[in-house]
């Protein structure tokens, strides 16, 4: 690891001022599970690291107007085990429980995970189908961004220089919605997904009302499977309709060949796991 200067601000304003002052030369660090590995591999060459660990008020789960508010410094493990998260959005607790191992989930923060923007991470597809958004804070103020718009490219988020992700907000799901998160893990239990799919649906009188589908590990960013959704919304739910809709995901994904499989294999698995996810939220009684 190269030498760098470490800052340990104790207020958010102080942290934002440090990010403004050092610009591209500074990187925030929270849990460190991603950042320390990037530093070790010289993939991050920042001269300044802004440690967020001592910032107050950014950890914990609360509810306002039916929405869950999760502080950016909350650990993955806290989201997984939070009774409030389990009661409000069990899909979210499930997605966070699938990340790596207990040890990593004790360390990795919600904000750090999302801004790392690794397309194979577990939480983003679920957050996308839950219509979650994040709060970004800079010295100029705050703005909200849907999680669907947070990811720009491999390991690249939409955060501007000087911005910190400070909160994750998850609205109430539609009444009667069914949800599922499927993670294809052909190698080891603690691995990143080879392909992952999250889905949320409501069905009334056999007609698909709400349908949201998102995939991870199938391209440069997690994606909403809009073609799949368009094929089902307002339609009669039948096994044939589900099968045809799942096939439409093949043209939406752009996977990389790597040690988890070839691009063709992952495209096939995206179809298979999308179909299984749709069957669970649309056809299972």
């Amino acid at each position, binding site marked *: *690891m*190269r*030498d*760098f*200067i*470490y800052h*340990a601000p104790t207020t958010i304003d102080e942290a934002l001022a440090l990010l403004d002052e050092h610009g591209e030369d500074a990187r925030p*660090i929270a849990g*460190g*599970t991603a950042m*320390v*590995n990037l*530093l*070790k591999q010289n993939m991050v060459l920042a*001269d300044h*690291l802004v*440690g967020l*660990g001592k910032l107050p008020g950014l950890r914990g789960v609360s509810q306002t107007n039916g929405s869950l508010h999760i502080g950016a410094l909350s650990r993955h*493990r806290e989201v997984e085990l939070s009774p409030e998260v389990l009661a409000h959005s069990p899909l979210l607790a499930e997605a966070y429980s699938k990340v*790596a*191992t*207990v*040890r*990593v989930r*004790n*360390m990795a923060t919600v904000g750090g995970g999302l801004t790392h923007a690794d397309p194979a991470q577990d939480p983003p597809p679920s957050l996308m189908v839950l219509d979650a958004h994040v709060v970004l804070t800079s010295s100029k103020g705050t703005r909200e961004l849907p999680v669907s718009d947070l990811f720009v490219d491999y390991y690249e988020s939409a955060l501007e220089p000087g911005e910190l992700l400070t909160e994750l907000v998850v609205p109430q799901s539609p009444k009667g919605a069914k949800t599922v998160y499927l993670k294809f893990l052909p190698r*080891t*239990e*603690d691995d990143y997904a080879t392909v992952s799919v999250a889905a949320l649906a409501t069905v009334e009188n056999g007609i698909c009302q709400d349908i949201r589908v998102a995939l991870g590990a199938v391209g440069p960013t997690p994606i909403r499977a809009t073609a799949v959704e368009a094929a089902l919304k307002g339609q009669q739910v039948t096994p044939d309709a589900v099968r045809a809709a799942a096939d439409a995901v093949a043209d939406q994904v752009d996977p990389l060949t790597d040690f988890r499989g070839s691009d063709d294999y992952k495209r096939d698995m995206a179809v298979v796991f999308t179909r299984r996810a749709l069957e669970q939220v649309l056809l299972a009684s």
Partner: protein
Amino acid sequence: MTTADALYTVNVTINGQPHEVKVPARRTLVDLLRYDLDMTGTKETCSVGVCGACTVLIDGEIAASCITLAVQADGANITTIEGVANGEALHPLQQSFIDHGGFQCGICTSGQIVAAKSLLDSNPSPTEDEVKEWMMGNLCRCTGYYQIMESILKASK
């Protein structure tokens, strides 16, 4: 002005003893333990947080000391393998690993025992599935998993 090779004062409590150490910002916690404090019970193996050999407790929770910066641990309460026994009296888990052949080459053992201790402290009677779920982040390249499982289950209540 601070320069990149400056030293930082880190205050940590390790196994109940306070320590003040001066380290560069890039010092990992496992290196602080092994090289600054000569506490070599904690092992570094994969160096990327995957294998579990460097597992310590930070404020009571298992963490990978190889991907934790020492400066991040400032103010923390840390438990290492050296703090598991009560003086000369082995912890029941340590005795169980001896009795049931829970280690072969020994490199992963410190991490296995610290992780298992954390499990049993919060869940004294885990099921076999709960032990597997908790311990899957601690790899044993001698593949002595059956004996490790047996050691932990026999030490549980």
